[in-house]
Structures are given as C-alpha cells and as structure tokens.
C-alpha cells in the first residue's frame, strides 16, 4: 500500500492560519476511519492505483455537495438519492478511469451493483455506501474489474497514514500530485480532528450544492 502511494508526490497544502495544527495523515486521521487505495485495472494506461475506499467503524453523520451540472453522472444521482433517505453512511467507494457520466440507465445500474457488492462485503446496507467516480466522460465503469478488486480493496483497509495516502493517489486522474491533509483543533474544550483528500486538475469550475 505504501509503495503505491509513492507513484506521484503529495501536493503542498497551504492552510489558512488559525487555531488548528496540521497533523500527519488525511482521511484516516480522525477517529473511526480507515482507507485504502489499490490498482484495480480500471485505468486505460499505467498501473497507478485507481480504486479507493474510505470506511467508518460506526454510522457516520453524512453530508454531500454535488455538481449542479444538469448532465450529472450516475454516481452523483445515486449519492443524492441515498443521502435523501439516510442521514448516515459507512463507506465511500471511488474509482478513477471512467466518470460514468452520460451513460444512461445502464450506468446507474452499474453504480447500484457496485454499491450492493461492497455493502455485502462490508456487511452493511447498500444505503450506507456512497460512490464517487472520475475519469473519461461517456464511459461506464469497468464493472467486472471493479467487482473483482473489491475483496482486495476491503482487505487493504487501514487506519494508517499510508492507507490515507494510497486512497488519495487512487482517486487522481491527470493530477500531478495527490491532495491530502488533516488538522487537529479544539471544539468545546475537546480535541477534534478533521481530515480530507481531494483530486482535480482539469474540468475544474465547481458549482456544487
């Protein structure tokens, strides 16, 4: 896992100044979270990791913000539907390679199948699984490769920094660097942690709601 993290360097993260301290790690820094990133054979070129998974040990209060582009990808529609019926989630599965946008009903069915398969492996309800996709618009997910990779992906889950790093690399497309950060701060006199990862390099002018 850590070897695959090194395929592209990490981005410099410029945090605004404030009452927080940057700490090592990303999405796994906060208590209860695990992550993994592996190569699942979805990318057209190269063997950079292309499947990422973030899980939570407990039901996590969930929120989402999504593109307002009318031509929304199947996973966007799926997540909006799922968040409208459930206030919690336990897992986020992300693939790079195919955006699964402009793929019609077949693309939406692919999302449901992937979420259901992962939910079965993680022993949770499919409504606890959220999906994100990125890559070439107009192409469905390489579902066979993704489904075959899920057991390995689940087995690779780790609460370590390497787990977060590998996931941050696995969601990249044309990115030259991976983006991951975590901070620690005080809320009501208690220490809390927020971590995150992101990807993006082109087709970038978000207008999410």
């Amino acid at each position, binding site marked *: 896992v850590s070897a695959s993290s090194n395929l592209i360097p990490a*981005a410099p*993260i410029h945090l*605004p100044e404030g*009452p*927080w301290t940057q700490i090592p790690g990303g*999405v796994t820094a*906060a*208590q*209860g*979270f695990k992550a993994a990133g592996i190569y699942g054979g979805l990318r057209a070129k190269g063997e950079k990791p292309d499947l990422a998974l*973030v899980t*939570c*040990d407990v039901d*996590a*209060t*969930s*929120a*989402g913000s*999504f*593109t*307002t*582009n009318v*031509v929304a990808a199947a*996973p*966007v529609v799926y*997540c909006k539907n799922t968040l409208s019926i459930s*206030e919690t*989630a336990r897992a*986020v599965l992300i693939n790079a390679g195919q*955006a699964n946008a402009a793929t019609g009903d077949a693309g939406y069915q692919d999302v449901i199948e992937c979420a259901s398969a992962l939910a079965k492996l993680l022993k949770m309800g499919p409504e606890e699984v959220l999906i*994100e996709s*990125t890559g*070439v*618009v107009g192409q469905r997910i390489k579902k066979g490769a993704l489904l075959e990779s899920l057991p390995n992906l689940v087995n690779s889950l780790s609460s370590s920094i390497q787990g977060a790093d590998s996931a941050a690399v696995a969601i990249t*497309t*044309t*990115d*030259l660097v991976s*983006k991951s*950060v975590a*901070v620690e*701060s005080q*809320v*009501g006199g*208690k220490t*809390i*942690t*927020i*971590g995150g990862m*992101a*990807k*993006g*390099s*082109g*087709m*970038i*002018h*978000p*207008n*999410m709601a």
Partner: protein
Amino acid sequence: TMLGVITTDAVVTSDIWRKMVQIAVNRSFNQITVDGDTSTNDTVIALASGLSGSPRISSLQSEEAVQLQACLDAVMQGLAKSIAWDGEGATCLIEVTVTGGQNEAEAAKIARSVASSSLLKAAIYGRDPNWGRIACAAGYAGVPFDLTKLRVVLGDILLMDGGEPQLFDRAAASDYLKKAGEMHGTVEIKVSVGDGLGIGQAWGCDLSYDYVKINAEYTT
C-alpha cells in the same frame, strides 16, 4: 472533475453538518477555477463519526459550531487551493482576495470572476502585470461597485488606485510573476471595490500551452 472526501470525529447533528459542509464548500471548492468547465461528477462527501467525545453541535450559532466551521473551512480551502495549484499545465497558483464588498457573497463573486478570466490567466503565464484585465474581470462579475474606489495590488505592487492606473515598476511586477512561475508558487492579487466589510477569495492558475496539449490528447 474534482472529488473530495472529508472525515471528522466531531459530534454534530445531521442538519447542521449538512449546512456546515455546504458553507465550507462555498468558501473553498466553489471558489476555485482552472478552465471554466463545470464537471458532470464534482462531489464532496463528508462523514462525521462522532467518536471524539466533543460537545454535540446542534446549532450553527453555537461557539462550538463556529470553531468546527472554521476548521472545516480551513481543510477544504487547503485542498481546494492544491487543486488550483495543480491545474492542468499550470505554472503557478493565483490567489485573488477581494475586500470592500457589500457582503461575503458579492466579494467572493468578484474574486472568482477575476480568477476565471482566461485573458488574465494567459497574461500571468506571459508574466504580464496586466491591471486592465484584472479590472475588467472585476467589472463584469455582475456585482455593482463604485469604479472610483477600485484598487488593484499585485503582490505588494500597487497597479490601480481610485479607479486610476498608477505608475509602477513594470519590470519588478513582471519579475514577481516570473519568480512565481519558476518556483510553482503563488501570485497574489488583491482587489478592493469599496468600503464594505465583505471579503472573498478565489483561486485559479495561469493558462499555459500545456493546457491545450493535455486536453487535446485526453478523449472525452
């Protein structure tokens, strides 16, 4: 496409968490631009495990909510800026700060208009301290302001004040842009549009020949 996953162990109710996440998204990811194309897939998912044992946040006005919001804004801004920094073909990050707006939303709208300007982005790649393109992009943002109060600063170099172009050391200003490009650093543009308290920021990158090369070869 931009994707994001945010995790925290703070304790927060569902409706407040969803509002906080959207506020932070508006202050971060929705304030970046690389090429003006809004993706079909842009998504941010945010999960709160509640395992920290911190006080439960159930009101946006509470002190704890303000503290958590500030942290959430910071994390998302850090990630958002790294996306703009890594814009396809970019040699530098552009940070636009607008002050003097009537409110945060108006200042943010002007900031993003400036950061989005293809002409300004090309000028910065050309190391051209082109105050006219900055002023122009501020002017068409759709936010009315008093032109006589327009002030534009590039790094520490005053380019416009009171709506009037200023005498400045063009070579030094160009050198500022050149150095930022050589070290993949940050170009800071500060725009003031009046006396209001609204402050907004946006982030973008310069526009290079490589952007066309990358996207001519990436099949949609």
